[in-house]
């Protein structure tokens, strides 16, 4: 990952990551799946996980 992209990604909020994931889900599986409660739950947890990994995991081999 380039330093610029990494910095940008790490500054993302969980809500914006969730919005991007939701758009991808809708594109792949349709509107009805996006509103399935289980999918909604997974989206929240996944977005929080992605954000946390980006924000807290400082890879020692990263050029940053």
């Amino acid at each position, binding site marked *: *990952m380039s330093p610029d992209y990494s910095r940008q*990604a790490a500054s993302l909020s969980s809500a914006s990551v969730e919005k991007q*994931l939701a758009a*991808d*889900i809708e594109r*792949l*599986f349709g509107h009805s*799946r996006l509103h*399935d*409660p*289980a*999918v909604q*739950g*997974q*989206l929240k*947890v*996944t977005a*929080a*996980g*992605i954000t*946390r*990994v*980006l924000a*807290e*995991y400082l*890879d020692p081999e990263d050029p940053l």
Partner: protein
Amino acid sequence: MRRDALLELGATEAAALIRRRQISSTEIVQAALERVDDLGELTGAWATVISEFALAEANRADADLWTRDFTPGRLHGVPFGVKDVIDTANVPTAAAFTPFRNRVPVEDAAVVAALKKAGAVLIGKTTTTQFAFADPSSARNPWARSRTAGGSSSGSAVAVATGQVPLALGTQTGGSTLRPAAFNGVIGFKPTLGLVSTVGLLPLSWTLDHVGVLTRNIEDVRTFIDVAAARPVKQSAAAIGPQIVPPRLGLVVPALEEACEEVRAHIRDLANAFMAGGAIVVEVDFGLPLGLILAAQRLIVQVEAATVHRRLLERHASDYLPLLRACAEVGQVVPAHSYVDALRLRRLAADRLEGQIARHQLDALLTPTVGSEAPGPETTGDPSLQNPFTLAGMPSISLPSGLSRNGLPLGVQFAARCGDDIQLLETARWCADHLEPIPAPAGISESPAGIIGRANHFR
């Protein structure tokens, strides 16, 4: 020997009696099948039972003992169950997935082949959650029907807890062996990643899938390792006899903070009891924030489960249960860089966890297995405290450690460095000797008396 006494035997002990012809394989397999008849439906523990085949195998096992130069295996003639995501030759392996109801593997999974080679007699396939994920199965907690049996190896845990078999195979990708063990009052063990082959498992995550085992005593776990290990197992000094030196344990404080007040107090009491017996207990942490560990674990499972299920999902979407379907769908849109970061975090988590053990010269880390007693049947329970050791590939074991105020089993978890499986068992054995036996449960009116909650059944 009476039927109930036969069914209280551990697998190792039963095999010894069979070898000495003090009991027969036919007797114990017949007894197991009768109990399955009595309890199978009540407990929902079985997906498939192969009575005729099992009895034929038991008869053959008895006949073999009269054959000149025959050397019986470590589990000769002993009945066992296999979680229904692990392939069994000529026996359906359906993973609780309707399109797989007629799926009949032609070969045994490597671990099943190993147990059969040791003489064990397969009596059936135990209930699993769908593809070993988080949608609850039909297995019922024998301690309280209003509580979950856990998951995903719920049928195996229930079958062992109710004396239907002395040993059953499970799998663990997050907490699927140790958590149901804790909720049902039995022992659950997950070896070092890769020590037991996963060839022949229906995968959930190629990176994190482990084979596990559920038993009622530690000796049977040791026998399982001896029989099923796919590579030489590192022995410990204690392997030549019981551990007499009290262990050094690392009480993982952030794990306590995840637990409810009752479980927190219970684990503190256990630590005090271990110290009173001579153990040294020091306070440690996970080496990384638990939330970060859990995020990495979930991302790996999501992406790999999505990969496993992508094609099946296209054809059979409506046959998927909600949580697995959602996982397989959302996993397809996780960015690749997040998956790679999660894999790298996995290595870092293992280094940090093992670093805690090395820094404090510990024999094992100590946590609650789960932060609460078994919750309601709408969930399989919380995997948060089992996940870190699965992510790190470290061996871990759950022992029944007491009862909650509601009379439900609680579990204590120990984890050791990768490769120290035998040392972990010796530590667990020492600790088990310092635990109060679990009394028989009260108020389980649906269950026949005297079949569950036998005192000291986990020794």
